[in-house]
């Protein structure tokens, strides 16, 4: 094509050539790469930004289906503000820069009112500048390391104090655990969570010698050495437990090795924060009986709301075996909160919705009512579940009430004085010591 153009240029006068080039360039750049957006004023567009291909598809595809399902349900009830909701699905293909590109496309080209999306922290970090710049709303449904409170993001997954700390409390109280292995995949979420837990454990009088921290690469598959180390660490005469922040794919070989080396939950229980119903679907769970997971939701919880949700979800996906999990519930809560906020201010204008969201309450699936807090996190109950033989969890403990999500961990030196408050202080990093926005400094 270019060479053809070249030939053309040679025969044309310089001026005409330039004009032609300019026209072509602009035409190419402006018309593309997307088909022109259909202007449909009678619908409200909802962006869905979850990977449908690549390594993260394993987790994120379900969340895309969840939002489609929720939109479908809402439209059956007549939509929002008398308009139907229209989903806009894009595939960021587990590629972090592509997340930013797709977010930009959703907001600028498709003019969506809100985006539900992301799974990994890095994908959220990647789209963050886009949401700030273009002033739109992102609902982020996955448990994460905290240390963030942004005006344009609403965090419906668990902060560390809504998952990790209650789990450790449970082990200390119920299992009388004295010795801790903090095992994680080497990335930010486990690092931060383990930092928080280490500080927390020490504040509870656990000695440094009784804490073992271990990191492995993504997708680690040979766990022999580490499992043997855990076994060794556990033979010091004190009750030992493993707190696992091992990510996704590495869990299956880890649990298989645990089972085969004969580490039973009665000897050394493992409590995991990233293992849910979906992950267990790939393992024979019989040897794992009694190992634990901490979540804000389990499929096995018997409440009318949850049973209804599961029934309708399985009907919607036409798959009677389709499981539900914690991030799905987070999207369920987030979606309903957004609908309520839009109905409250009778507009989908991001500024108005952002201001309206804190304080909005929406029922969760476990029988309570979650509330959006000024720091853009929500209140959630925390459950500890034991793995059953059928790939589900049996809830053995729950927090007495709902736990409010902390954007900033109280255990970390850098963030203990910070709070996020988008209602009163209008900032995400208000320092309660200096009474100023903007972190610790200045």
């Amino acid at each position, binding site marked *: 094509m*270019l060479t053809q153009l070249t030939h053309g240029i040679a025969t044309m006068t310089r001026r005409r050539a330039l004009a032609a080039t300019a026209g072509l360039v*602009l035409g190419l750049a402006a018309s593309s790469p*997307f088909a022109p957006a259909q202007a449909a004023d009678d619908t409200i567009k909802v962006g869905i930004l979850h990977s449908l291909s690549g390594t993260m598809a394993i987790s994120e595809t379900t969340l895309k289906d969840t939002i489609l399902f929720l939109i479908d349900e809402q439209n059956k009830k007549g939509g929002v503000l008398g308009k139907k909701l229209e989903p806009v699905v*894009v595939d960021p293909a587990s590629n*972090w820069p592509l997340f930013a*590109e797709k977010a930009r496309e959703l907001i600028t080209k498709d003019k969506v009112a809100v985006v539900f999306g992301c799974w990994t922290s*890095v994908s959220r970090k990647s789209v963050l500048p886009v949401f700030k710049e273009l002033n739109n709303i992102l609902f982020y449904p996955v448990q994460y390391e905290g240390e963030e409170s942004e005006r344009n993001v609403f965090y419906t997954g668990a902060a560390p104090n809504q998952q990790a700390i209650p789990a450790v409390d449970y082990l200390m109280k119920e299992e009388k655990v004295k010795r801790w292995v903090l095992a994680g995949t080497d990335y930010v979420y486990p690092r931060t969570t383990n930092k928080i837990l280490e500080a927390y454990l020490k504040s509870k009088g656990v000695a440094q010698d009784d804490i073992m921290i271990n990191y492995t690469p993504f997708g680690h598959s040979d766990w022999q050495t580490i499992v043997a180390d855990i076994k060794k660490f556990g033979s010091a005469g004190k009750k030992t437990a493993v707190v696992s922040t091992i990510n996704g794919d590495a869990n299956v070989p880890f649990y298989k090795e645990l089972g085969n080396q004969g580490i039973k939950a009665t000897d050394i229980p493992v409590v995991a924060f990233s293992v849910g119903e979906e992950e267990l679907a790939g393992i024979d769970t019989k040897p794992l009986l009694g190992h634990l997971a901490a979540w804000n939701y389990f499929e096995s919880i018997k409440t009318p709301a949850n049973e209804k949700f599961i029934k309708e979800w399985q009907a919607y996906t036409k798959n009677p075996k389709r499981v539900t999990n914690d991030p799905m519930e987070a999207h369920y809560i987030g979606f309903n909160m957004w609908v309520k906020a839009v109905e409250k201010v009778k507009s989908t204008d991001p500024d108005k919705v952002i201001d309206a969201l804190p304080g909005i309450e929406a029922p969760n699936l476990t029988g309570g009512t979650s509330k959006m807090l000024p720091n853009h996190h929500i209140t959630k109950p925390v459950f500890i579940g034991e793995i059953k033989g059928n790939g589900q969890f049996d809830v053995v403990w729950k927090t007495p009430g709902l736990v409010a999500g902390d954007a900033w961990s109280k255990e970390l030196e850098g*963030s203990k004085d910070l709070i996020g408050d988008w209602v009163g202080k209008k900032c995400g990093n208000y320092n309660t010591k200096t009474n100023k926005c903007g*972190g610790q400094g200045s």
Partner: protein
Amino acid sequence: MTPHILTRSLDRAATAFVLIVAAVGVLIPLSNLLLPQGSMFHVPTYLVALWGKYVCYAILALSIDLIWGYCGILSLGHGAFFALGGYAMGMYLMRQIGSRGVYGNPILPDFMVFLNWDKLPWYWYGFDKFAFAALMVLLVPGLLAFCFGWLAFRSRVTGVYLSIITQAMTYALLLGFFRNDFGFGGNNGLTDFKDILGFNVQAEGTRCVLFLLSCLALVTAFLICRAVVTSKLGKVLIAVRDAESRTRFLGYRVESYKLFVFTLSACMAGVAGALYVPQVGIINPSEFAPGNSIEAVIWVAVGGRGTLVGAALGAVVVNYAKTFFTSGPLAPYWLFMLGALFILVTLLLPKGIVGTFNSWWEPLKARRNSPDADSAAREDGVGAPNLAE
């Protein structure tokens, strides 16, 4: 650069390419800034950023084509140099955030604060100065390429062995940069940039200038590549590509040539990465993934290996397709298409778009003005690459 090199490098196709890129570089920002929103020719800001990304990829493709198309070195780790350049720029941008980070720490980036680092690691020193960062953009990838190449070429690691160890190199870097202890933000990488040289990175004006700079960098990279491949050195490179040991028996120190062009190419990739980061807004270890580097090689193959214009064109075409097909109903099939593209191009279009076009266009042209046939046979400095390694 002496004038005779310039005149030699700029044949008609090259001139046209330079003009078009320059036109793109000027017109797109102008239309974005001057034309009203509703105008048919208005280019929205997000497209400026998107095309900016394509242009950076085009520079990366050029750098790969220079070594693969002209010297037969297939690097499956060029993404590493791209990413290192990007990290150097990212570190500068991180330092520019200063006390505007969420913790307000004037020195330490946020990810260091919340992982309790008490002081800046030594390798972060100096990155608050743009000039130093800019130097590192060239120096770090260049130095790595030099050391790697010096070892590999001297001991005559060639062909697929070289490809595999370049892959091992980028894989090792990937694992390393994932580690939080390396001090580059781990998996999350560097992000949430504020300023570049005092200008807001997200402002439309800055984006337009960055786009223009990327186009200029592309033109410069293109001219450098042209100067190299049209010089006698270019002929030596092709000789190395086609018959390495023959070249050695003629008295050429093949490893020096390879080292020179490999290092040059790595520096270009570094510059591409450095321009890419402020426009995309994030740099993280996934850029080191071996798959990314392999994908970049396929851009070159699609456009036409051994034709510089083709490499740049291939990068734009494939990424344009990627943007297009990852939205809408075709989204789940994108990987099928990308995979099929790899297969079909190698099987049916081994010369790529431009190479194939040349091979049926030039005989035609040669027939039309036969006295001029000789120079036409070498439109892009070389004939069709000899694909039998």
